[in-house]
């Protein structure tokens, strides 16, 4: 500590990164997958794949809701969009609500957008399991899990800033990458993935904390408002309580003209329709469109909306959703919306997916660097228990987790569709696979362990599209998968990732690195995009890591 700023920051960087690095890896992997959570959920529900949206969809949904829940308290209808080809119907039955209940439990159904039939997709948590795992883990009491995740995030924030302070030549070494030099190559990979994407890493970490600010730092709200956070939210999002009394029965007007009117008014496709007191004389219909892409908008509400009288379709209110927001709020929204990638443009989300992979690579290369350094310090002696443990945990949290992911997806295809317990069992398969990988990694915390697990995940991920081919009809050789782009995209990404793991495996197996002699001749050109290259450095390992 007495030895100067850089050194103390280096110490802090190492420990804040290493202690919870494994948790951070899991958070990065699941968080990255969450950018495509809806697409993953769709892939995991093949029963929905044949739905084809059409201009009749709103009317069909209207008829379905009238059929299923004519006396509901409210309806909420989500029309198909680029991410989801089905219509999602939700409704709140008109039963007396329990006093002071938080979320009233509604009911829901999924409708084929082309035919109007209600669909029953196989029971599965889909992409939501991974999304929730990212910030709530699984099987752990919710508040504890969130606090642990936030503590890990805080560790990461400290690691980022101490890392920047300790990196002496951060500008000079901006482009430096020296492959084939063992530990130095690990360091360069770590620096490259960390520094080049520094804006992303800082944003994702800081915004992660901001998302949970009510839980982590309620002291400002408690100081400024009598009611604490409730007072704050009431101030910012004043909620008009909907009328709690049903009116007399009346016919609901048609929805199609209201949809076209809203689309014309805002020049955006209609996404959401909500109705208070359907089939009553005080029915109110709200038709909302997508927002124009703007990262600083509010998350909740604010979509351009037209409000209609439910019985005769007269326009009651126009809510363009563009109220001015104070500067501080825009900053908050910017951070949070970037973290969640709320703007639906798939290309931008794809970009964030790549950055997420980069973040995973950053944490992974950091931890591999630590192992590499300690191994080198041993100078050929056998590694001790602590080093073997770290190495084993590294393997389990990287290749182990990736294998568990593939197992989760495979289970979705392999478990019987009608089986009542399949939803929990998909998740159990995930954890069992991870546990298996952990056991294997702890038994073989060395190069052979890496090779075996890399080989396993290459096979697993490559087999997913094949499994898809065998068990569904929305696979890569079918028209359906390409019509609903996300489905083909999923299989293609599986193949690409399998290629990445295969490349990493090849590099580790080859291991022709000779320390201190720079890039080898005839080294094949790194073929593809940035997402893969940080992984390829697994080939550049030191000699002493045991076989």
């Amino acid at each position, binding site marked *: 500590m007495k030895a100067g700023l850089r050194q103390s920051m280096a110490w802090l960087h190492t420990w804040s990164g290493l202690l919870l690095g494994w948790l951070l890896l899991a958070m990065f992997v699941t968080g990255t997958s969450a950018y495509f959570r809806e697409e993953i959920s769709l892939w995991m529900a093949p029963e929905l794949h044949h739905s084809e949206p059409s201009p009749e969809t709103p009317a069909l949904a209207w008829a379905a809701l009238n059929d299923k829940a004519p006396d509901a308290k409210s309806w909420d209808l989500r029309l198909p969009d680029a991410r989801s080809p089905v219509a999602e119907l939700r409704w709140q039955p008109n039963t007396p609500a329990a006093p002071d209940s938080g979320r009233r439990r509604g009911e829901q159904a999924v409708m084929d957008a082309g035919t109007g039939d209600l669909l029953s997709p196989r029971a599965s948590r889909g992409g939501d399991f991974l999304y929730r795992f990212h910030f709530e883990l699984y099987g752990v009491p919710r508040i504890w899990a969130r606090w642990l995740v936030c503590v890990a995030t805080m560790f990461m924030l400290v690691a980022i800033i101490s890392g920047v302070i300790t990196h002496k030549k951060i500008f000079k070494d*901006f482009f430096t*990458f*020296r*492959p084939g030099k063992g530990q130095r190559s690990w360091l360069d990979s770590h620096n490259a993935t960390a520094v*080049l994407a520094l804006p992303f890493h800082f944003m994702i970490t800081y915004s992660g904390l901001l998302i949970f600010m009510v839980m982590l730092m309620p002291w400002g709200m408690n100081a400024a408002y009598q009611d604490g956070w409730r007072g704050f939210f009431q101030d910012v999002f004043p909620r008009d309580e909907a009328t709690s009394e049903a009116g007399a029965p009346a016919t609901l007007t048609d929805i199609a003209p209201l949809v076209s009117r809203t689309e014309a008014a805002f020049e955006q496709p209609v996404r959401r329709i909500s109705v208070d007191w359907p089939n009553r004389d005080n029915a109110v219909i709200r038709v909302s469109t997508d927002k124009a892409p703007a990262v600083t908008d509010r998350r909740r509400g604010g979509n351009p909306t037209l409000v209609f009288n439910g019985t005769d379709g007269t326009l009651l209110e126009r809510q363009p959703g563009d109220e001015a927001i104070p500067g501080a709020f825009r900053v908050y929204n910017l951070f949070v919306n970037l973290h969640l990638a709320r703007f639906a443009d798939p*290309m931008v989300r794809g*970009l964030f997916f790549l950055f997420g992979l980069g973040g995973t690579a950053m944490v992974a290369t950091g931890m591999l660097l630590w192992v590499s350094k300690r191994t080198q310090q041993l100078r050929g002696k056998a590694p001790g228990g602590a080093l073997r443990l770290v190495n084993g945990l590294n393997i389990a949290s990287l290749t182990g987790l990736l294998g568990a992911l593939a197992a989760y997806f495979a289970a979705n295809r392999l478990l019987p569709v009608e089986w009542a317990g399949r939803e929990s069992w998909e998740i159990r398969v995930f954890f069992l696979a991870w546990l298996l990988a952990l056991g294997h990694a702890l038994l073989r915390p060395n190069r052979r362990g890496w090779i075996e697990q890399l080989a396993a995940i290459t096979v697993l991920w490559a087999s997913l599209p094949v499994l898809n081919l065998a068990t569904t009809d929305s696979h890569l050789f079918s028209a359906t998968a390409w019509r609903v782009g996300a489905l083909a995209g999923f299989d293609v990404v599986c193949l690409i990732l399998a290629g990445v793991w295969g490349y990493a495996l090849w590099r580790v197996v080859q291991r022709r690195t000779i320390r201190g002699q720079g890039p080898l001749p005839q080294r094949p050109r790194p073929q593809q995009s*940035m997402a893969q*290259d940080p992984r390829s450095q697994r080939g550049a390992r030191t000699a002493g890591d045991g076989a």
Partner: protein
Amino acid sequence: MTVIAVTLPLTLAYAGLTALALAMKRHHEAALSAKPPAARLRGFRIAGWVLIALMVASCLRLWPTGLALSMALGLVTLAGLPLVFLLPYRPRLMVRLAPILPVLALIATLILT
């Protein structure tokens, strides 16, 4: 359509970063000639920053301000990574791509959007 439109800022970022890399003696010697004069290094640095500025401008043309600036940062990252890996393996290729790619992107953007 956006995929094509994005190639322009992306390739401009690549060209700008390449120029900035060439402004450093170590990388200049690896990619071009040994012993570059200080004036040439400075020239590369200026060119690099100009290209980055052009890249930010092209982002502002495509998206609203908040998103544009975030995308600019993101695209610089994306453009930087292949560069970091080309530099040790194929430095001359890296340099040759730098003027070609933005021109191709500009043509593609003008024709296809």
